[in-house]
């Protein structure tokens, strides 16, 4: 199957998935709760019946199911779902917070790479030595440790005892800088749009204006959450790199390269290139996982991102916000997976399914 057909098929399955996601969201919002409106306005407490009537009408609870579904569908697609607690559109609040979550995930990714790539290579080079054993232990540790407990341990060590980080707020670029970034599309035609989107992530925005103190502050604030995310999955990724590197080193082309008398370094370069293919996929999936797992990290580290928004919505039983957040999480996750799949097909010509 050619790359074009693969892409066409992969994107064709993307659309029914999105419709299915919306249907599942509909079930969660309308069909499953015993008395949705009561739940929406705050559980079992006494509420003015008039208010309940109004909400019933506004969110189409008195309509048949297909009308409810189309209502939710159009609201989610056009981003008109309104958060009754804040009175803002859910999409607006999520849009403000999404860049911060991306920033957190990027920091997690950075630490994941720092931890896993050298460890994986070292473990493959020195098979069955203490380094290999340590990598195995780290993988086991990461999959057994409840994430929130690890976060508290790190806070205890680095914030309480050593005091080399802080845990409040997110450093943001100054107001003129933010205006400059949002004005970019008017200055530069095409690249500007991209730039303004990337610039919404606080650190990159600050970089664009050259506010290096903000970048420095961001590093000081975000390195601990990033390290926590990286520690949790670092061992796992290192294990995968180790195994695929050992596979590659045992293959025939490496033997052939050795027989041709290539230097050790050149042989390694060949093997590493091929061994990285499965690792790239795993790293992509991990990035999606970081975005989704951010809900716990953001709660513990006090980062005002998308996960924190959903967490607040849960504690206030703010259903439209929960539904909007769930939907956006799913869209982001599906899109990341789609990109990973396409990347995988592009970098490895052997994979076309």
């Amino acid at each position, binding site marked *: 199957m050619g790359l074009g057909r693969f892409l066409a098929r992969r994107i064709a399955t993307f659309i029914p*998935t999105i419709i299915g996601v919306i249907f599942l969201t509909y079930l969660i919002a309308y069909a499953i709760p015993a008395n949705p409106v009561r*739940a929406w306005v705050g559980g079992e407490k006494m509420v003015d019946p008039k208010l309940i009537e109004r909400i019933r009408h506004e969110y189409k609870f008195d309509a048949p199911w297909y009308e409810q579904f189309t209502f939710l569908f159009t609201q989610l697609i056009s981003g008109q779902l309104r958060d009754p607690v804040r009175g803002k559109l859910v999409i607006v609040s999520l849009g403000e917070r999404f860049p911060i979550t991306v920033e957190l995930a990027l920091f997690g990714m950075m630490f994941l790479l720092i931890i896993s790539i050298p460890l994986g290579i070292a473990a493959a080079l020195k098979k069955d030595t203490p380094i290999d054993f340590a990598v195995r232990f780290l993988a086991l540790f990461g999959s057994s440790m409840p994430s929130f407990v690890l976060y*508290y341990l790190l806070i205890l060590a680095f914030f309480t005892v050593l005091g080399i980080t802080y845990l409040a707020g997110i450093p943001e670029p100054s107001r003129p800088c933010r205006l400059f970034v949002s004005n970019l599309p008017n200055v530069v035609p095409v690249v500007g749009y991209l730039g303004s989107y990337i610039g919404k992530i606080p650190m990159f925005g600050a970089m664009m204006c050259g506010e290096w103190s903000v970048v420095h502050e961001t590093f000081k604030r975000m390195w601990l959450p990033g390290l926590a995310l990286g520690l949790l999955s670092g061992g796992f990724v290192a294990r995968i790199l180790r195994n695929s590197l050992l596979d590659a080193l045992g293959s025939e082309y490496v033997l052939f390269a050795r027989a041709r008398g290539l230097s050790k370094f050149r042989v390694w370069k060949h093997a590493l290139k091929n061994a990285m293919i499965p690792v790239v996929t795993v790293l992509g999936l991990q990035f999606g996982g970081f975005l*989704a797992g951010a809900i*716990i990290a953001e709660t513990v580290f006090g980062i005002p991102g998308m996960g924190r928004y959903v967490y607040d919505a849960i504690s206030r039983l703010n259903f439209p916000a929960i539904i909007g957040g769930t939907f956006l999480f799913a869209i982001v996750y599906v899109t990341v*997976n789609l990109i990973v799949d396409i990347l995988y097909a592009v970098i490895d010509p052997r994979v076309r399914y």
Partner: protein
Amino acid sequence: MAEVIYRGFCIIIDTIAKLMDKIRPGWSDRNSSRISEWKLMAYAYSRSAIGIVGGVLVSIFVIIGIIGPYIAFERYNEFPASVNPDLYFLRPCIPPWCDPWSENLPLLGTDNWGRDILSLVLHGARISLVISLIVVALGVPLGIILGLLAGYFGGAVDEVMMRITDVFIAFPALILAIAFATVLPSRFREVLYTNVFTREFFLSLFALSKEEIPQLASLLAVIFALVLVWWPGYARIIRGSVLSVKEQAFVEAARSLGLSTWRVLFRHILPNVLSPVIVMVTFDLGTATLLAAALSFLGIGPQDPVPELGFLVSKGREYFPDKWWIVMFPGIALFIIALGWNLLGDSLRDVLDPKTRRSLEFKVKGKKQRKFKSVKRK
């Protein structure tokens, strides 16, 4: 040590063989190769250190899960601080600073209501055990059956089922579980208030008292949400292996003998796709425990005073980091539980994989000429 464990397993296997012989005479003769394979597995397991550590941790956890609520010094719903005004100013405390004259010294400290953390953790182990067991016992068979059907029948059935699976996989597991677990309790509460038998059954399963019916509904919601999150992974894996197994000759033979579809599916295909599932289940028992704890940490599961381990951690947040023990001890308990399952799964992967097992057999046979057959032929 390893030899003792191996002997123990051999005795168990021989007993099973003898029992089967009594039920169906000649069973052990017909299955002698299977018995020797089991013994080889027992041998491989007894020689893996991580497997033994994992097995010990898991057995301790299971035993505590069963008897924990009864050996706990205090019930979870007794609040010493509200009864004894002297304690009020000491809560939360840890031994050197706790009331040194109290009858039962709280070894791991107390929480904000003066409850003994050790007792809470003992009870929490039961809750975690029940949650993980139910989630796996419901989610895995569901996934296996759907995967079998999709893989075996193919065509439209396959396409529809895989699209549904895609939708469930499209959500990050934690987020989907959160969404379900927030909306489900109201339904479960209705059921629990009307259905006496269900209520009593689950209350005794979690060792909770009658006042906790709303919390029980949230617990059931967490379980149900996790089941809904759990099945798609298994459906996908089973479907994949069924696709390759169903083309093999023995399936063709079974079909040409005129066996019914169900018999072919469950007697001939299922046993051949099951071995990766056993390993996955072991890992997932740990993962389910952690995910359930994460949900209650976020405040979706049971609320006060139910001592779910994740919820205990989230309550300790207010007092962290000065009163670190409220967060740390339940957290360490969770870590040990998950570590036990993961270690066990890690060694089972080697033990159940015929390739590594064979290599071990050759290694052993070269050295000692050990015989794995000990059931005598009549």
